[in-house]
């Protein structure tokens, strides 16, 4: 299966081919005829996620933020594209690098900033920091930093959705490294055996921490595992929000009517280092000199240029949005900094449930 608007990639291919070539796909996107209205919003959301993370990165550098922050700058299209067909009653789970997932689903910037600052007003009431985000109102049921941990949890959320019988689905965002955890394979098989509506989204940025996938797996494409587990799979340019959205829409539409798992491999790249604001080359991790080229596969710029090309945006939009979002983030940051920390009794009061 392939996403409509992107070149045909066979999920059975074991390697990424052109998708792994940083020199490719710098051109602006091909936009679908329908569904255009959404695209301007998608641009804004991707830029908002980036603005938040740039701010967070700066504050990590300045020492104002102390919790570990894993930035998804450069990977925004995967989050925003997958969010396209989702609704609040769906159940989304993420991992350690989930700021963009949180924003893509509609999470509050103020609560994100408050959370990374450990404030009681944060998304997780200051108990989790960057690596533990939740926003059930918008369908985000939890992100945690144990690699692969939320994959089986998403399968169970999908089982619940199937039992509910209202056509809701579960989504599990994870990285290429997570496919090396046995739990990932157990989860794929269990989802296939139970036929539950869970969308596995592998954001393959080809790195697990300091190690390129070629040092960890015999092949670079992880969609091959979906084939082995009999899970329908799409492999797309993860920096093409149109392609990601198309795959997600197709997969989710089917899952809503006929429960069963699906898999999307979104090939992408992170601009920053594994953790924090730096790029890791500063500490000696070789990224093969690919980083500058990957910056040219910018999901934001490629969508923006496409919108301009079809006349849905004027050339000034990018700058205006940048300024506007920067201000929005700045305001949220300022408010969050004034927010209170959890009260001392939160230390013990939040371990167990209250009166039934």
């Amino acid at each position, binding site marked *: 299966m392939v996403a409509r608007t992107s070149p045909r990639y066979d999920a059975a291919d074991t390697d990424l081919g052109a998708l792994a070539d940083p020199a490719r796909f710098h051109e602006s996107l091909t936009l679908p005829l329908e569904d255009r209205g959404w695209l301007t919003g998608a641009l804004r959301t991707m830029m908002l996620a980036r603005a938040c993370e740039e701010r967070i990165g700066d504050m990590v550098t300045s020492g104002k933020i102390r919790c570990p922050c894993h930035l998804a700058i450069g990977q925004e299209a995967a989050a925003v594209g997958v969010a396209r067909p989702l609704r609040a009653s769906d159940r989304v789970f993420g991992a350690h690098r989930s700021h963009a997932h949180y924003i893509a689903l509609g999470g509050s910037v103020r609560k994100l900033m408050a959370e990374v600052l450990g404030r009681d007003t944060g998304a997780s009431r200051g108990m989790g920091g960057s690596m533990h985000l*939740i926003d059930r109102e918008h369908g985000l049921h939890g992100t945690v930093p144990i690699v692969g*941990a939320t994959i089986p*949890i998403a*399968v169970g959320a999908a089982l619940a959705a199937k039992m509910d019988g209202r056509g809701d689905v579960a989504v599990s965002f994870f990285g290429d490294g997570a496919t090396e955890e046995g739990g990932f394979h157990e989860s794929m098989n269990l989802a296939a055996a139970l036929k539950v509506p869970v969308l596995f989204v592998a954001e393959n940025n080809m790195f697990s921490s300091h190690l390129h996938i070629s040092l960890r797996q015999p092949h670079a494409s992880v969609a091959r595992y979906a084939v082995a587990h009999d899970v329908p799979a799409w492999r797309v340019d993860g920096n093409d929000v149109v392609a990601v959205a198309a795959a997600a829409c197709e997969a989710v539409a089917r899952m809503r009517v006929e429960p069963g798992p699906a898999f999307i491999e979104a090939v992408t790249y992170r601009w920053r280092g594994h953790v924090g604001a730096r790029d890791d080359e500063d500490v000696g991790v070789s990224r093969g000199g690919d980083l500058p080229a990957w910056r040219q596969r910018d999901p934001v710029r490629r969508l923006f240029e496409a919108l301009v090309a079809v006349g849905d945006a004027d050339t000034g939009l990018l700058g205006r949005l940048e300024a506007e979002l920067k201000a929005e983030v700045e305001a949220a940051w300022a408010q969050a900094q004034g927010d209170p920390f959890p009260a001392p009794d939160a230390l013990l009061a*939040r371990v167990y449930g209250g009166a039934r």
Partner: protein
Amino acid sequence: MAVRSYGVAIRDGFEHLMTEHREVFTIGQGLWSPWYVGSTMTDLEKQFGKARVIDTPVSELATTGAALGAALCGYRPIVIHPRVDFMLLAVDQIVTQAAKWRYMFGGDVNVPLTVRAIINRGGEQGAQHSQSLHAWFAHIPGLRVVMPATARDARDLLIASALCDDPVLYIDDRWLYGVEEEIGSPVELDLRLEGPRLVREGAELTLVGAGHSAWLCTEAARSLAENGVSCDVIDVRVLNPFDARLIVDSVRRTGRLLAVDGDWTTCGFAGEVIASVVEALPPGALRASPRRLTLPEAPAPTSAPLERSYYTNVADVVTAARQLVGVPGDSWE
């Protein structure tokens, strides 16, 4: 009132839960098997359907994680591990995910997950088919740990676990499945209000145990009484959060403590009982040094004679109790 075996009482608990609470379902290995879980789930899948009684692939981690995921989305799943040993492949989901989920997301998320693990030892099964390790889980804040010792508790604490909004590890013991008791109809207890219970009153010694060890203590106390040694017997029931007050009060009266535990010694539950008591009592409150009766510091052997000497029996408890109260051996015939 009806006479129920511990094993059948567990099945009664499932039947009550699945009849009265649509959000309860069970998932795990062997649920459609004639032998995996003994008499405790017989034909449940026929009664409630295979959609609510789900047998699974050999994937402990994913199965447990999936149950957690369903618990986060409005259900009250009970995930079954036919042996504690198998469950160890899923400790990340139990200990690092379920037990911490509410806390790391601010305290408001309910996690009504019950993990049922069966202690299944003896029968020359050996080192990998014998572990209990309840001390491991009692060590984890956020995870409630329950070990029923009677048929009534086997049923009612299972019900309470499933209806609790926190993750609960419910551990039952195959060696108790045949133990019978006359019990009334199911009761829906609030697990947060349950704790250790004084099952027998005495003056000279406090015997403490959980699960099968509580049964050993009760049996031993009976024979000790016949020989003029009267004991308090406390069935711990809920190991975490652990409320030692009842035990402390008992030892304050008896001045003697014997903690029995079918698990290893170092950092085990028997040691916890002793530490909690001596921390709470003033120095000099004890008439004898407290003592624990636990497994030898070795994995479980298979060879019959070694296996016999490996596990604690009623006579061992009686002997240890006798030594503690200082009753000379010869006065015992």
